[in-house]
């Protein structure tokens, strides 16, 4: 079955904030080592969907999840929810947020090393190696190699966002979630991060939430269109953006709403 080749398989997923039903019976398979874009108008549940994948939805007061998400075949929402530690899931599924959020009290080096150091890694040579490689993978190394001990917030917005990407990569996640990573950045920084996606998908499965349809077209292999908590359409990006099968998708893409 083709479905089983997915890195992440979402089955009958429902998510709530209190009484507010924000995701309605979502079924979707995210393929391995591809970039999948999640698009849709504001408030349609895009961010909630990806926050379910690293168990971050539940950190909000009164938020809850029903249904199943399989990561490499393992259900991260088992019947006895305590069987799965959210911490373990989050080490496999990294996340980059909408606004760059480096730790202001830490140096550039320690920002990248934080996920390892605070999980007990003390081996200096190993840390050095991972920090350098993560910064290189995030395309930031050349700009910061001489000021690793400077504060993380001394960088520009675009650099901070790449620092956050390096920080997420340092924990060696298999999946990286991007929650509108470029919405607070200028076009040049945006282009740099989009370029990065192509390199990252060699090693990682990537899911990116975006408001920007051309961006989805540029970076993604697959696209999912959500509307008011329903998954309307999911297909190869070139197909979905050029020949959507659903009327609603077509309306959204042509700017009739959203």
């Amino acid at each position: 079955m083709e479905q089983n080749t997915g890195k992440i398989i979402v089955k009958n997923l429902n998510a709530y904030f209190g009484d507010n039903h924000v995701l309605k019976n979502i079924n979707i398979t995210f393929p391995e080592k591809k970039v999948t874009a999640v698009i849709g108008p504001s408030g349609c549940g895009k961010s909630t969907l990806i926050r379910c994948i690293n168990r971050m939805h539940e950190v909000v007061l009164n938020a809850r999840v029903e249904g199943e998400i399989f990561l490499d075949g393992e259900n991260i929402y088992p019947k006895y929810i305590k069987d799965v530690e959210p911490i373990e899931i989050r080490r496999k599924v990294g996340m980059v947020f909408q606004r760059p959020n480096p730790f202001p009290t830490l140096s550039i080096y320690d920002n990248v090393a934080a996920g390892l150091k605070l999980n007990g890694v003390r081996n200096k040579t190993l840390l050095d190696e991972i920090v350098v490689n993560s910064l290189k993978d995030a395309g930031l190394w050349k700009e910061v190699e001489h000021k690793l001990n400077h504060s993380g917030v001394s960088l520009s917005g675009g650099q901070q966002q790449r620092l956050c990407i390096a920080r997420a990569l340092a924990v060696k996640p298999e999946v990286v979630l991007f929650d509108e990573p470029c919405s607070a950045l200028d076009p040049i920084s945006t282009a740099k991060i989009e370029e990065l996606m192509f390199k990252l998908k060699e090693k990682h499965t990537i899911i990116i939430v975006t408001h920007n349809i051309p961006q989805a077209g540029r970076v993604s292999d697959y696209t999912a269109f959500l509307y008011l908590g329903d998954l309307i359409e999911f297909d190869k990006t070139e197909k979905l953006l050029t020949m959507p099968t659903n009327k609603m998708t077509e309306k959204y893409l042509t700017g009739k709403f959203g």
Partner: protein
Amino acid sequence: MSIKRKIISKIMMTSTLLCALVTLIPLISIFLYVISKGITNINLDFFMNLPKPVGEPGGGMSNAIVGSLILVGLSSIWAIPVSILGGVYLAEYGNNKLGTIIRFLADVLSGIPSIVVGIFAYVVFVLPMKTFSTISGAFALGIIMIPSVMRITEEMVRMVPNTLREASWALGISQFRTTVSIVLKTAKAGIITGVMLSIARIAGETAPLLFTAFGNRFWNQGLNTPIASLPLQIFVYAMSPFEDWHKQAWSGALVLIMLVFLTSYLSRRTMKSRYKI
């Protein structure tokens, strides 16, 4: 029109500056007055010697200086951890009824006169132990510290943006490490300022020590014996009819101010972190 606006702007600017300067006047005049009165009597003897009987030259306040340091140190050791952990609870988990009650009671506690706290420590420690003691003084001073340090910790922890907590959780960092290494570290500067303010406050407290630490004229003999402290010594000397002791009281006041000044300065210096975990 524009000229009128500029004139009003100048007037307002000048008056805000003047008001800012006015707030400095009490501090500077106290400083200058205490220095002018106290500096003449400051010498090595003052720091090295124990108090001597009236008329005998060369008496000092060494025991009171050390006593103050001991009292402030002991109260800090128990009160600061309690207050900081309490403040973290209020900020991170305290959005419930229990949190509201604790917050209200802490505000009430901070409004209780310090002499009443002294009486409480007297009942809890001095009466059962049948002696004035260091430990009862540290207990009273610690109680005075708790509400302010706890509330300032809460405020500072609340000011840490939630995006930083989420960033930390998303890296698979545990709640404990997130709170200690990310949240408290980010809030550190503000918390330390709050701690310093309350240390400065208890260093100058006299009333709660009157019937707890009580004061003495020799070196401290242990936790369960009376202990001298600068404010107590100043109080006793300033109330006395002797000119000699008045001079010593002024010098004691000067030393007390300097100690408070020094602790704030040093803590600010060490606080400038080097962005390390």
